[in-house]
């Protein structure tokens, strides 16, 4: 490192200029200080949670024994899991159709697919509310987890396009000769999908699943409009807790959620980094 200093700063070595370094540091601070503060104050031994009074784990204990919080958390995880699986299947299939075939109305479908991504969430929320109130009322008083049906459906509707977009982008780099090679070597159509197309798609499926899961897990607006009185999700629960006061218990609950998301992301990145999964994009017309 010390020897690198001897060389003058190159025209494209922006990161070796102090102005850029300062800017990066500022961005880092701006992004992470709130999160770190949130986590730190979850260990604060104070009801009011404004001044640091001392270290404690009692709010974690409290959060873990708060039955309604636990229930909301369970609901959220269930909704996220189910909507992820369905979005993944739906999204991947849409992506395959758009990648593979030409058909009338393809551009329309392509455009319509982006709608849930660009439409303001509040509009989606109202639309879902109207839909479940007028068009297809979701029966009340069902047993768990059927009572979550309305939320799950609305979550699928806004997260599967994200999966489709990610998978389609990945498929753009697929070398069609690979598929033909499998067919040529004796594989039927189904076998070709399983042996050649799916392995290529895998990283985008992981990324898409992660996106769908986190989107669902932290969605507040749309959930708020579709949730019944007896179906509370984690973000909605936190919101209602905050309305009374921001207690360290809320911080503790949020911290758990953050840690969970970070772990999930790390796992996904790890999987994506695996050369066995990601290796090989398009043709290899290259050096000897």
């Amino acid at each position: 490192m010390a020897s690198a200093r001897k060389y003058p700063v190159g025209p494209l070595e922006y990161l070796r200029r102090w102005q850029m370094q300062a800017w990066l540091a500022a961005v880092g601070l701006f992004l992470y200080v709130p999160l770190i503060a949130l986590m730190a104050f979850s260990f604060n031994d104070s009801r009011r949670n404004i001044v640091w009074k001392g270290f404690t784990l009692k709010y974690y204990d409290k959060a873990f024994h708060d039955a309604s919080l636990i229930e909301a958390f369970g609901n959220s995880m269930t909704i996220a899991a189910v909507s992820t699986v369905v979005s993944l299947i739906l999204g991947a299939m849409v992506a395959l159709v758009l990648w593979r075939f030409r058909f009338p109305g393809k551009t329309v479908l392509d455009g319509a697919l982006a709608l849930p991504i660009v439409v303001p969430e509040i509009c989606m929320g109202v639309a879902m509310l109207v839909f479940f109130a007028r068009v297809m009322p979701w029966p009340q008083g069902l047993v768990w987890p059927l009572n979550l049906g309305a939320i799950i459906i609305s979550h699928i509707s806004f997260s599967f396009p994200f999966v489709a977009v990610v998978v389609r982008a990945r498929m753009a780099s697929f070398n069609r000769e690979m598929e033909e090679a499998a067919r040529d070597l004796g594989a039927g159509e189904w076998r070709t999908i399983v042996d050649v197309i799916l392995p290529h798609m895998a990283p985008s499926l992981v990324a898409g699943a992660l996106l769908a899961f986190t989107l669902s897990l932290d969605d507040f607006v749309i959930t708020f409009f579709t949730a019944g009185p007896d179906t509370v999700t984690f973000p909605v629960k936190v919101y209602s807790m905050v309305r009374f006061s921001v207690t360290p218990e809320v911080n503790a609950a949020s911290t758990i959620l953050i840690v969970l998301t970070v772990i999930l992301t790390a796992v996904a990145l790890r999987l994506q980094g695996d050369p066995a999964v990601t290796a090989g994009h398009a043709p290899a017309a290259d050096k000897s």
Partner: protein
Amino acid sequence: MSDKPPIITFENITKRFGKMVAVDNVSLSVQEGEFFSLLGPSGCGKTTLLRMLAGFETPTEGRILIDGEDISSVPPNKRPVNMVFQSYAVFPHMSVADNVAYGLKVDRVPAAERNRRVEEALELVQLGGLGGRKPDQLSGGQRQRVALARALVKRPRVLLLDEPLSALDAKLREQMRTELSTLQEKVGITFIMVTHDQDEALALASRCAVMNRGLLQQVASPNDLYEFPNSRFVADFIGTVNLFEGVLAVDEPDHAVIKSPEISTDIFLDHGVTGASGGVVWAAIRPEKIELHKRPEGSTAPSMGDAPPGANAVAGTIRHEAYLGGESIYEVEIGGGRRIKVKRSNLTRWDQEDFALGEAVWLCWHACSPAVLLS
């Protein structure tokens, strides 16, 4: 060879994509054991023909027979042919051995036999011991060998090669050329290769089909294609050629003379021309068949001995020289702005110094050298 039924027959194959005619009424047959090459400029329909044989395209009209059986309705995975793709299409998520084993696995070949055959195939393409590697740890040339082994391990009736050498650099291409032909001799499988590179086709193939704009132009051995082209397109596409448009002034059984306004000398031929019927003909002379001689002030045209004095010899001036090491290519102006390409081997280390830019020269050729083209 010719009394055996052909292994592959294209019967009046036409392929249209919308309004575009990719392949236009092509009939062609390939004998067992041949190294057959489909040659033509890009977009001539050669790849489409190959893909129809593999089963990735269906002919609009006509039939394709393999061993006398119509395979038009057979899906690609059930055809007794295997293909080496232009991009090699080696599966990136499988090891080299798994790639080669793939076709056998799909066919449910028992593991013991499968492993043995994979091992053999890898040895055959000189990749023995690299079975555990992943494709991204291989060079381009090695990936191509994997693609070859993967296709050959299935012991196809016919191996199809789509521009097999186009992605390799010059040195490696030359090496793979030799290896491909040794490989074909060793396995004895019929090879059909698509290429736009005439050198590749001439060097490898036992027989070539030249295509242009979906039409079959000529099917012949490399030697015949080069020395006896049947049209200006083939003459020009295979190698380099000097073409002179003219009429047959004399046409006897044992000699003929072409007079062309493009060149001041008579083009004398030591054979008669059949089927000319007085129309326009073209004389095609290859650059290496023309001799260069110095032309001192006041000298007369040298005689080649097999043509009457004054014929097959023309005065010119060297206008351009391309020194290629082993040979030099001269562009010689013969009047009227017309330039002729002449190729000359650099037999000694001082050869290229003999003819400088602006030098006055005689160009002459033997009476057997020009090819007469009727179209």
